């Protein structure tokens, strides 16, 4: 293993992480809920009138973030090299997996670990391990 110092952005990462943490605790302290993005999205698929509004509002906030950011600074360009079939496969796996596992990087990785939940620790270690192995296979075995 060698660290890619040219790509490593520790201060931006910490600052962004703090914003994500603040958003997560604001959601809990103000609305009494876990800001788990996969769960919020999945709730849109079985709409119950009572909670459809805040789900749509939250997703609207996520969607609006690039525009609001662009008012202050140039939006960083994304690099997406994944082929169309792999994007579809990735989406299906993430959709299925986050439902079976009751959460994703936000719900388990940020909120759950912040609450010292043992389920979230197991979930996070599991999806990290699966992610490490998938990238290893893609980049170093089948490349």
């Amino acid at each position: 293993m060698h660290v890619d110092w040219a790509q490593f952005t520790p201060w931006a990462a910490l600052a962004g992480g703090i914003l994500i943490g603040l958003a997560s605790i604001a959601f809990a302290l103000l609305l009494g809920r876990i800001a788990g993005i996969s769960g919020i999205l999945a709730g849109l698929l079985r709409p119950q009138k009572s909670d459809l509004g805040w789900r749509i509002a939250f997703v609207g906030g996520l969607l609006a973030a690039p525009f609001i950011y662009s008012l202050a600074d140039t939006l960083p360009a994304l690099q997406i090299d994944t082929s169309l079939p792999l994007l579809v496969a990735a989406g299906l796996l993430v959709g299925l997996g986050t439902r079976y596992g009751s959460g994703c990087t936000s719900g388990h990785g940020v909120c759950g670990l912040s609450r010292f939940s043992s389920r979230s620790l197991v979930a996070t270690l599991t999806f990290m391990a699966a992610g490490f192995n998938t990238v290893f296979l893609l980049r170093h075995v089948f490349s």
Partner: protein
Amino acid sequence: MYLLVSFAVGLLFGLGLIVSGMENPAKVLGFLDLAGAWDPSLALVMAGAIAVGALGFAVAGRRARSWLGLPMRLPAERPVDRRLVAGGLLFGAGWGLAGFCPGPAVVALGAGYWQAGVFVASMLVGMAVYEVAERLGARRALKPS
């Protein structure tokens, strides 16, 4: 009021993802590529978020109602089960394929990347498949054998 709060929190979350660089799949894959040129940034994003989160959830966990008077719906501790691990494996495999997890993908969709649109649409299909499978499973469980 609740809608405005929810929108603002989603916005703050999205801005955090952009500032941290985690909206960019290349950066996430750089973290997941332990055997290549490794970019540790994601670990620091999580460290920053959890440091703040631990303080906030320590307060939130002791409350019966939120600051806006809503009931606290934080999940109770449950045992680890096979579904949790299987779900984590599927999710992690998909995460490693494209470098997208749900939050960054929605933000990238907002930035206008069609690839994020394909990913989000497929993810919603995956979630819908789960809903249908669960409903069929529940129906089967109800039938007398």
